[in-house]
């Protein structure tokens, strides 16, 4: 069993106080805190070999390039991808999805074609496809869910047609915590010749994935939800797909030769990485992956499952509390509402007690509409959270109810 107290020492920010009380950070689904290993890796890069990559012959540039490409290899191994050139650096999961929509999407979709998403997608996995539909005349269809937040898999066969070109679905719902059966969705989609993009932003810190075993065509995630820096993320794409795709942005580093008459593009993954990338971010993400692997993803998941179970049992005893998202086998997220109290008020009062949660629509307004709610309060757990912190959360919830309902 993972001892969170041991790992907490790696996260200096957890020692700070908020409103005079020790910080209880339960907004990990928005972004995780960063361990010393990540902070040190970025600082070490800036102190010892800060240089631009892939161009200088000098020592610093060589070292920076090696560290940058080293991070790419760590990501390949973490995702279980077959080839390192299948790993494209982006600003985050959002940019990775937009990249696929604007390159693969624009060349493979036409009027009457269909894109299938799910009812629990983050706006980042809805809006880029709506934009693509507007450009191409394609149609967006949605896999519905039930009141627990479980996808209605028996509807998938009906929704998949010979016009379905792409299925874009999240592995873990950021608003509900549901873990979706993406392997089954991929199998069904491939059977009708559709490609599949899996949004792994909320999943990678909790669920082990393997690209070869999963067989998805595209997979995206953000570094900052995996204990890494913001502004760095990853697009995984199958080699043959990436090779056939047109470039995303034009600029330096994505070319082989430029004349005013014609430009030839670089090979993958560089074809999709125009301009100087977030070098320190990539190095930091590599360090975050090393960190997560040293703790062990299965240990992290077991610890979070235990915390979630304890928190869920505690939540069920609170009068007037309703848990939003009750799918079996959820990952690390407790979304809830309190009768008669708006989630935003809950958030402010919890903050006053030093407890950081998210209140709002979690960039998933269709999910809120489904439950007929304006917003929810969401506590989300990470490897450094403790049972004492779960207790502090519920003490603070008690305070909210006392203040509002007395």
């Amino acid at each position, binding site marked *: 069993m993972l001892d969170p107290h041991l790992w907490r020492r790696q996260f200096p920010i957890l020692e700070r106080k908020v*409103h005079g009380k020790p910080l209880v950070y339960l907004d990990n689904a928005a972004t995780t805190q960063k361990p010393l290993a990540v902070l040190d890796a970025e600082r070490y890069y800036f102190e010892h070999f800060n240089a631009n990559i892939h161009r200088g012959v000098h020592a610093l540039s060589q070292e920076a390039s090696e560290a940058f490409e080293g991070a790419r290899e760590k990501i390949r191994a973490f995702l279980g991808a077959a080839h390192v050139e299948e790993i494209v650096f982006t600003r985050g999961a959002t940019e990775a999805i937009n990249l696929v929509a604007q390159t693969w999407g624009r060349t493979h979709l036409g009027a009457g074609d269909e894109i299938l998403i799910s009812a629990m997608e983050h706006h980042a996995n809805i809006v880029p496809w709506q934009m693509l539909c507007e450009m191409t005349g394609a149609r967006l269809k949605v896999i519905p869910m039930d009141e627990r937040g479980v996808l209605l898999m028996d509807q998938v066969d009906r929704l998949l047609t010979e016009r379905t070109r792409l299925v874009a679905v999240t592995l873990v719902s950021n608003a509900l915590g549901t873990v979706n059966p993406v392997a089954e969705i991929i199998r069904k989609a491939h059977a009708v010749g559709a490609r599949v993009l899996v949004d792994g932003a909320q999943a990678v810190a909790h669920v082990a994935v393997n690209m070869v075993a999963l067989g998805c065509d595209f997979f995206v995630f953000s570094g900052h939800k995996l204990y890494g820096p913001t502004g760095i993320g990853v697009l995984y794409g199958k080699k043959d797909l990436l090779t056939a795709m047109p470039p995303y942005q034009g600029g330096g580093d994505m070319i082989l030769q430029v004349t005013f008459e014609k430009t030839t593009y670089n090979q993958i993954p560089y074809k999709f990485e125009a301009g100087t990338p977030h070098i320190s971010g990539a190095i930091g993400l590599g360090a975050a992956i090393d960190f997560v692997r040293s703790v062990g993803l299965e240990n992290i998941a077991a610890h979070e499952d235990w915390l979630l179970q304890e928190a869920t049992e505690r939540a069920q005893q609170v009068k007037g509390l309703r848990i939003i998202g009750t799918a079996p086998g959820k990952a690390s997220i407790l979304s809830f509402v309190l009768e008669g109290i*708006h989630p935003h008020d809950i958030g402010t009062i919890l903050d*006053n007690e030093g407890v950081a949660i998210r209140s*709002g629509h979690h960039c998933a307004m269709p999910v809120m509409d489904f439950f007929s709610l304006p*917003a929810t309060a969401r506590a989300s757990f990470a490897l450094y959270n403790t049972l004492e912190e779960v207790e502090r959360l519920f003490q603070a919830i008690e305070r909210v109810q006392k203040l*509002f309902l007395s």
Partner: protein
Amino acid sequence: MSDLRDLYQEVIFDHNRHPRNFGPLPGANRHADGFNALCGDKLSLNLKVEDGIIQEARFEGSGCAISTASASLMTEALKGRREAEVAELFEGFHRMVKGEPYTVEMGKLAVLAGVSEFPARVKCATLAWHTLNAALHQADQPVSTE
């Protein structure tokens, strides 16, 4: 440390639980919808303005305690006011909730002064006022506090 009681005063709880002037307004001649994308607050404001004087103001919608109480208190404060006074009152209110000096007499609206200690909640307090502004200027698009 910011005291929660400065924000959540009894008057605010009272107006949250029992919002005044809540519901439709038949015969309204000014209308606007407001939306706070941050927390999902939705507000629909209806006014009856005659000879430049706000005779009636009613609102509908759902929101947090701060935005509901603010809308409720605003509708109370508007009745009988000249349209021309509203801009000045809004300016004063806005300055008050941002913790800036203001000169306008706020009356009961002053219970929302505590919002200034909670910058994340300024948008909640001003949603009704932005919506009012849109209603008086007959904006077609729903207003947002973003």
